[in-house]
């Protein structure tokens, strides 16, 4: 098996690195707590193996970054932890996770959207010029959807590396809804980016909308067919 340093270099993480912060992408540099109190563990061996197969990179963009408090970063880190487990089910790795911020002033109100088109506008205005999927974590999302609430929105079959400046929605978005819900919504929206469609008739599937899911914590199943579709997306690579 290739060394950690070699694989870190392959995914673009170089220099003096912290394993949890730089290699696993946890913003706070420590493992986030599980909301149920269960033990949280990551496996370096598993991650090294996944990076030698199909994997994708993520840019976490804290939107309204000056409003983020430590508890919000804990929530984001838990979403990253869970995302790795979700996609591991279909042997797809999450590679480099980098963190970016858009201040409240820069966002011009898009850190607190109340309509769907503001989420589209957000991804149309901002993008990180690299080979990662842009994931906008919006601090104060409050968008009604019927009698419910919209938790996130994403491009379906999102743009390839180099095409993120094309017309239209170019990334995924999620609000902050508590660790378990945020984690599910983040993985769900990234699933859309990676071509997956809704599966509301399968309440345990990740792609079932949260309102129809049987459990926010456990409705995270991906089938092998969905895994194949994810692997076929141009953001997935196996170059390490």
């Amino acid at each position, binding site marked *: 098996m290739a060394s950690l340093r070699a694989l870190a270099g392959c995914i673009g993480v170089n220099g003096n690195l912290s394993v949890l912060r730089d290699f696993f992408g946890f913003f706070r540099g420590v493992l986030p707590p599980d909301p149920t109190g269960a033990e949280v563990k990551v496996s370096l061996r598993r991650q090294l193996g996944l990076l030698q197969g199909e994997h994708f990179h993520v840019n976490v963009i804290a939107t309204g970054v000056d409003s983020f408090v430590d508890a919000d970063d804990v929530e984001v880190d838990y979403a990253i932890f869970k995302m790795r487990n979700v996609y591991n089910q279909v042997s797809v790795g999450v590679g480099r996770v*980098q963190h970016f*911020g858009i201040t409240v002033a820069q966002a011009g109100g898009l850190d607190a959207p109340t309509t769907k088109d503001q989420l589209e506008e957000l991804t149309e*205005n901002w993008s990180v010029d690299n080979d990662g999927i842009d994931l906008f974590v919006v601090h104060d999302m409050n968008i*009604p959807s019927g*009698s419910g609430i919209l938790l996130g929105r994403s*491009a379906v079959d999102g743009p390839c590396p180099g095409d993120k400046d094309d017309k239209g929605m*170019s990334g995924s978005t999620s609000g902050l809804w508590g660790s378990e819900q945020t984690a599910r919504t983040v993985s769900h929206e990234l699933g859309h980016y990676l071509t997956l469609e809704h599966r509301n008739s399968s309440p345990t599937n990740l792609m079932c909308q*949260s309102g129809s899911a049987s459990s926010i914590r456990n409705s995270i199943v991906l089938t092998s067919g969905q895994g194949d579709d994810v692997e076929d997306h141009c953001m997935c690579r196996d170059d390490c």
Partner: protein
Amino acid sequence: MAVSESSSRSHDDVLDLDPTRFTRRELLAAARGDDPDLHPVIAVRLLAQKRYANRTKNADLSALLDSDDSPARVRTAAAIELGRLGNDAAVEVLTARSKERKRTVRDPAVAGLRELARVHGEPSDPLTATVRAEVSLARVVAGPPTLPPVLYLDEERAHPITTRKATARQLSQVSDGVQEEIGTLGLGSATGREVRCADRSFVVLTLDELVETVRGLGPGAPSIAAAVAGQDTQETGDWDLRYFVTVTPGDGDVMELRVGTRQGRVAFAGEARLVDEGIEFSVRAVASPGSAPAVVEGRLDADGLRFSKALSAPDVAARMVPSQRRSAGR
């Protein structure tokens, strides 16, 4: 025709819980952070959706807005729901709190008033004396005095934007979707024009008797000329309001035309001119991150709205780049 026209599709994650599954007390407790399984902001949304006396609901939401124990996003959510309710008592609370010295109360109240204006509209203000417009008109018209330059369109490389007369069924659906926001404006009661860009669909609704209205405007007096509704073609099929078109007469024949979002971002700009028994117009996309060059020209008269040119190019202005972020512990 929109700058944000998309060649991509998008899907949502929606939590559509039934408010009747919870008692009012349970929702209030969750809004205070006492339920690990129900996020406080979602609890506030459910509280607002739950059917119980408005008077009590106003009091509950006001208490959450005022509570020093509530996190900022819960206070904001409570204020936004008061704005969505929009009854007299809610307006009174939001207006009073928007004048508070304490920012922890004032800022959420202002967010609530913005939502009130978005959902229910506002009475006319000094900028819009000729029509009972909502605050979006003021935002678009009061936008930057000098607009960004329009984007150059290479017509050789551009592709046509499809337009056609909107069907009666479409108009009915559009009306359902945007009634709350444009109901008082007198827009497109009889006709509308559909504009298709990639897999997106828009309908332009012009102001009834626009030509007569414009003739009556003095220099510098703006009016809403049209509204543009957009459809969620991927999931719900619902229509919602995307843009307002405003017209402001200058000193001579030429009028300034702006197409802007409800938040006030101007997406298209151009000119209109009164000719014979109608109005001829031309608008182009203005430079902003993620926007694409486009031009729309046409005429509005007794025969309705017609486009003589509608083109868009695939090139998009560069998006902004967020700053890299590192935790303080690093």
